């Protein structure tokens, strides 16, 4: 009697694809629904001017969200980005007002951002203090430092037209801040998708001890993402200062929450390891579009925050309840 052995056939590639990218697909769908909805409800929403304006306004958030994706991927968090933006924003205005050439000031500010991030990263990674605590302290410290520097006043930036161009100018019809944000997004995407450093970030968030055991510089990697968050915050601060033409300690209130909401809405897990740079872009833009669309619909601006909050909660609830593991295609939809 002979026994026949047969092999399993490989599963459907489409289904593999859908289950692997379920969260990105769901936020992409939601994003498109928002575009269609606001496009139908108002005449101006889908105009090129308005869409470019949305991207210009979202640019500082987008820049920091890219770095925040990396931080959250290591299972960390950076609550201090908003305060860092305010601090560097104020410091940039003061530096340029003091007569430092603006290109030098830009380099200095990015250096300050890296330094702040480096200190936080050292506490988190080498001293083992939870990122939540370190950056919560940072949130208080840098906002306080910004207030101390400016004494609460807004500091105007004068005689630096080249600098202001960074926030207000356009290049080939596209706002400069949007271009900068797009460059940062592309860099972030490539790093996470196909570089050894991106792989190390994911490995550290997925299984820190495994990363250490295979010889990755795990501590250095974890601290480095806070440096990147610091540099990104400094860049966002410069974009804001250039757009508004002033530096203020009250800039970027609630900024960190918008950034984190965008990242989490995009499907990056707060538990670490699971990451999506495309999701971050879509999540951040979704929030920006909702804010912009509601204003164009003449809904009270106070409503915007409520709606944004509800949408974040519902979207993440749907992601965790509906799209995790049990996602089925072609068999009566969602289980």
């Amino acid at each position, binding site marked *: 009697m002979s026994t026949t052995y047969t092999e*399993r056939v*490989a*599963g459907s590639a489409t289904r*593999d694809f859908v289950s*692997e990218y379920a969260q990105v697909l769901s936020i992409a769908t939601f994003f498109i629904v928002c575009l269609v909805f606001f496009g139908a409800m108002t005449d101006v929403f889908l105009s090129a001017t308005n869409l470019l304006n949305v991207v210009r306004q979202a640019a500082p958030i987008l820049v920091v969200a890219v770095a925040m994706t990396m931080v959250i991927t290591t299972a960390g968090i950076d609550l201090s980005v908003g305060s860092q933006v305010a601090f560097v924003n104020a410091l940039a205005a003061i530096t340029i007002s003091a007569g430092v050439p603006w290109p030098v000031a830009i380099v200095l500010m990015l250096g300050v951002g890296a330094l702040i991030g480096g200190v936080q990263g050292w506490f988190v990674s080498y001293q083992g203090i939870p990122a939540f605590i370190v950056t919560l302290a940072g949130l208080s410290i840098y906002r306080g430092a910004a207030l101390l520097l400016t004494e609460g006043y807004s500091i105007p930036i004068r005689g630096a037209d080249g600098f202001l161009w960074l926030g207000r100018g356009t290049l080939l019809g596209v706002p400069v801040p949007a271009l900068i944000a797009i460059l940062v997004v592309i860099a972030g995407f*490539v790093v996470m998708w*196909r*570089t*050894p450093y991106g*792989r190390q970030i*994911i*490995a550290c*968030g*997925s*299984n820190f*001890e*495994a*990363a*250490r*055991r*295979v*010889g*990755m510089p795990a501590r250095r990697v974890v601290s480095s993402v806070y440096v990147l968050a610091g540099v990104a915050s400094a860049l966002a601060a410069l974009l804001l200062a250039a757009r508004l033409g002033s530096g203020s300690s009250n800039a970027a209130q609630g900024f960190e929450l918008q950034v984190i909401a965008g990242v989490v809405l995009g499907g990056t897990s707060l538990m670490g*390891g*699971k*990451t999506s740079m495309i999701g971050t872009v879509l999540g951040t833009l979704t929030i920006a579009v909702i804010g912009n669309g509601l204003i164009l619909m003449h809904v009270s601006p106070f409503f915007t925050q409520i709606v944004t909050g509800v949408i974040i909660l519902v979207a993440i609830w749907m992601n965790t309840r509906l799209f995790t593991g049990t996602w089925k295609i072609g068999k009566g939809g969602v289980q």
Partner: protein
Amino acid sequence: MTATDTNTRIASEGGVPPSDGTPLMSLRGIRKTFGSHQALRGVDLDIFAGECVGLIGDNAAGKSTLSKIIAGTHIPDGGRILLGDEPVSFQSPADARARHIEMVYQDLSLCDHIDVVGNLFLGREMTKGPFLDQERMIKQAEEMLARLEIRIPRLTAKVEKLSGGQRQAIAIARAASFEPDILIMDEPTSALAVAEVEAVLELINRVKERGVGVILVTHRMQDLFRVCDRIAVMYEGTKVAERRTEETNLQELVDLIVGKGGH
């Protein structure tokens, strides 16, 4: 240093080499304390090329701690480690890996959110310029897995989607594929199905033939007699006995493990 030269990696004729000559690695008086707990109280062990040493003992006897010290994960509080004639002190697993010591950890040490290829090449990613060379890694991964007769349907699937046996197979493939001199396996067969256990035991015999020194930590006594040349019994942080496999039997080993060996 003769025993550690690379040419000893070539398969030796005639099966089990004798346990004389210079060991690949010698441990002398290894001690390790965690807080007030004396995990290891002075352990000696020699590892020879082309030989498999079974490390057995009850839970908390110190088997895993000893194997992790060899792999550089733990740093010993006392004692000496010699690679050939050269004293070494590993400060991290990377140091041990650089000296061709690989370990399959009991918890497998895989990253769930990274695909199969990425896990196989974790920590030694192939690059093309500044980027990961995914195509070359997939090609080599296919060869690695085929050599070990491990079947994984989709190499770009995330490891979290795989079964326990497949995960264990990946952990083993990762350690065995990069020409180790010493391969440590901590409970490599615990989550495996029958055919997979056979494959792992065959694999151990094959890497032994290539001149690799293997340390096998296991609770499965039947596996010991299939692959080990020597068996070291640990008890309460010490090595209480060491036997050549052909000179011992299951009953004696069980007695040694539970502490009846002294009577």
